[in-house]
């Protein structure tokens, strides 16, 4: 789906100059396009009203468990590797429990819990501040809950980065292409000056596949439709204690974490 849409938007971009007089018209076409493609999904595509993810920390045992999911995403999506952390582009990465959940601060928690690496990615918020602030609708929310990014419309103002309370967004401070280790020709590369982030693997969902990180996680990550009471993730959420990052901000994050009990915390120490 993404390719069609991109090409279409490129076309719109080219004709934008002529369309100055008919702004409303252009807008209408773009909107219709988005909606049309959501109503006419390709056969076999995975559909949902609200996609969400559960990450079960009890199942992350070794360093390799983290590496696998991260490189699955990096390799498919042509994520560049910048040595300078200031210019870093990342869709999924890890940080310690303490940093991921600062509001859970507790001095006497086991060190192993505080230091436990947590996989972090865009939360595809239900009420996303990044979408609210974007002056061009380059970042937008789809009807199935995915928060998407249109690289061809983004003007690179970085308002969305200031608005995202999770640090989920990366900006291309310079041309990322020379920093891509091995390019995947099936996925577009990006250019300097635009913002990007995890897409919940929209291109794979359209082909009936689960997100790459989920597939690579050996069951440690689950993905499904939150609005379907019979979905696997609804069952998991009903039978486990889960937490979300900074849910007090009202953003409605759609990544749920199962941290696990003391056993898991003890295990956590071994993962470093």
């Amino acid at each position, binding site marked *: 789906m993404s390719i069609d849409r991109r090409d279409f938007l490129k076309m719109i971009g080219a004709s934008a100059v002529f369309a100055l007089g008919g702004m409303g018209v252009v807008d209408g076409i773009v909107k219709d396009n988005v909606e049309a493609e959501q109503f006419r999904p390709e056969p076999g595509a995975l559909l949902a009203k609200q996609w969400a993810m559960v990450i079960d920390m009890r199942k992350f045992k070794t360093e390799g468990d983290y590496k696998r999911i991260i490189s699955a995403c990096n390799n498919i999506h042509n994520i560049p590797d910048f040595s300078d952390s200031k210019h870093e582009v990342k869709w999924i990465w890890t940080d310690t429990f303490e940093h991921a959940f600062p509001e859970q601060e507790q001095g006497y928690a086991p060190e192993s819990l505080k230091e436990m690496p947590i996989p972090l990615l865009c939360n595809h918020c239900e009420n996303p501040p990044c979408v609210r602030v974007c*002056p061009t609708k380059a970042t937008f929310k789809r009807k199935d809950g995915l928060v998407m990014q249109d690289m061809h*419309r983004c003007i690179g103002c970085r308002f969305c980065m200031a608005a995202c309370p999770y640090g989920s967004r990366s900006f291309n401070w310079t041309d990322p292409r020379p920093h891509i280790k091995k390019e995947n020709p099936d996925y577009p590369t990006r250019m300097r000056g635009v913002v990007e982030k995890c897409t919940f693997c929209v291109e794979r969902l359209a082909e009936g596949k689960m997100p790459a990180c989920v597939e690579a996680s050996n069951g440690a990550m689950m993905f499904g439709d939150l609005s379907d009471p019979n979905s696997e993730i609804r069952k998991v959420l009903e039978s486990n204690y889960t937490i979300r990052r900074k849910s007090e901000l009202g953003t409605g994050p759609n990544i749920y974490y199962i941290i696990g009990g003391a056993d898991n915390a003890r295990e956590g120490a071994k993962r470093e």
Partner: protein
Amino acid sequence: MLEKALSGSRNYWTWVLSLLAVIGVGVIFYLRQFDYGLGVTGMSRDVSWGLYIGQFTFFVGVAASAVMLVIPFYLHNYKKFGRMVILGEFLAVSAVLMCMLFIFVDMGQPTRVVNMFLHPTPNSVMFFDAVVLFGYLLLNITIGWTSMNAEKKGFAPPAWVKPLVYISIPWAFSIHTVTAFLYAGLPGREYWLTAIMAARFLASAFAAGPALLIILAIIVRKVSKFDPGKEAIKSIGKIVAYAMAANVFFLLLEVFTAFYSSIPGEKNPFFYLYAGLQGHGRLVLLMWTSAILAVISLVLLIVPKTRNTEKTLLAACGAVFASLWIDKGFGLVVGGFVPNPFGTITEYWPTIPESFIVLAVWAIGALVLTILYKVAISIREENAGIEIEH
């Protein structure tokens, strides 16, 4: 009228040429940025806005402050501002132009800037900001230029200017309020998430803008025969005094809320800015400079004797301007990003290319201001002695 800007003394031309030189250097650095990307600046994934947006914010304030002359003159018929008011309006014009340039140089994809208008997004504060700024620019150009033109011919300005002037008053408040909303509505940025942000912005704007205007008026009087009037300068000094006092008061309110509530997210940016946090404190010296300058300026402004003496008033205005430039044009932006959402710290400091690009935008602002003032002053010099009713 523009031809008036084409004849001038040697000093005038030296000044104009130096500005052009600074602009030239900045353009070269900008081309480098355009080609390589915003990676030439000191900004990062964690501190994703820097000096450009800070300067934008600061100069929106300068632009809005013209209203501090417009209100007394047009609404209260305070005649002493008669000769000053045009300087304020033209300052607003050049400040808004600078704001637009700062936004432009901050964009990752500047060639797509029209997307903002091709896909108007009413829920985005940035979209609103662009709209109100553009409107304010048009208002001030129209008002300033028409008044000048009328004055040149020795007439009072046409009647349709008055309603525009009245519109420009709430409009000035709106540009700075909307600019504050860019910051004040973001979840998770505690340093910005404060209802008093717009009020603080207006207070600091009404201090910094008129302070700059006093400095400019004194320069104008030095280099030309045009005298904005001693009384006018004195009155503006009073405005600066009140506004600066309000600004410092508002800042102290923030400090109280952060430290009495003792919520770490509220306190940490203050710690980072004024004391250093987790071993990082690149802005500490700068922020204290701002604080000390604020105190000095307040003393000079509040004591009537120093406020009414032009030399000390000039020093006070310099201190106000520098203090607020640091606080709002630099510290404010960085404080929102440090610490980052993970509670860790990435520091920011502008790079050389970034600084030269900022300098060039100032130089463009100064050039536009010089030209506008030159026209205004030449007309005043020719018409010396004729008092015009606005």
